[in-house]
């Protein structure tokens, strides 16, 4: 079976859209797909999709609030305090292109594998319980490399 593994590093709306477009497209045409979320990318798999004080210490809680979840992901250029992401979402709907949320739902339906980075979770004070239940496991580099072996790997 062909395999695509993506390291989802960015928490930006547009880059996450690229991650989930590739992931769902590949899964739909028969690839095994592994998504490894690390650093800002972890925002995409948080249970609380808005802003919340996720974290264990005052500092990580503040970070958690600033980072937010999928619904408040900023656009990497011309964000304008979050207005651009809203405009993009409405343009996507208007043009019958799947929104980020629809792509994430499709990825779940198609059995895309979600993994979270142990090290980044540790820094940000996030536990596995803070993530959506589809997150299969918490991994380190060695485990991810083993999963990605013999396939294509992308860093977004």
């Amino acid at each position, binding site marked *: 079976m062909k395999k695509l593994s993506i390291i989802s590093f960015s928490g930006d709306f547009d880059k996450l859209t690229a991650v989930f477009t590739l992931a*769902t497209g590949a*899964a739909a*045409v028969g690839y095994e797909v592994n998504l490894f979320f690390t650093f800002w990318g972890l925002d995409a798999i948080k249970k609380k999709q808005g802003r919340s004080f996720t974290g264990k210490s005052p500092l990580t809680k503040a970070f958690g609030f600033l980072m937010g979840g999928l619904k408040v992901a900023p656009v990497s250029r011309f964000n304008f305090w979050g207005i651009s992401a809203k405009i993009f979402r409405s343009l996507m709907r208007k043009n019958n*292109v799947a929104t980020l949320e629809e792509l994430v739902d499709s990825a779940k339906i*198609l059995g895309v594998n979600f993994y979270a980075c142990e090290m980044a979770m540790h820094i940000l004070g996030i536990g596995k319980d803070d993530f959506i239940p589809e997150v299969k496991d918490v991994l380190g580099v060695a485990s991810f490399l083993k999963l990605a072996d013999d396939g294509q790997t992308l860093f977004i």
Partner: protein
Amino acid sequence: MANYKIDITKDHCPITFVKTKIELSKLAQGDTLEVLLLKGEPLENVPRTSTEQGYTVLSIEPVDGDIYKVIIQK
């Protein structure tokens, strides 16, 4: 044998493939899926990727303008 139908003419990549894949997964042996799609990316790739995944493409025919009908069997 059941015959399923799906219209992906208003969808774009990757949802064209996602919807087709989800419908194909409902098929039992011998069932068919009729896919209405546009020429270009969907017409070039939906039949090809279905064949790669072990399905049989029974026919591809033009319907109206850029719209084609593809019949896929499990």
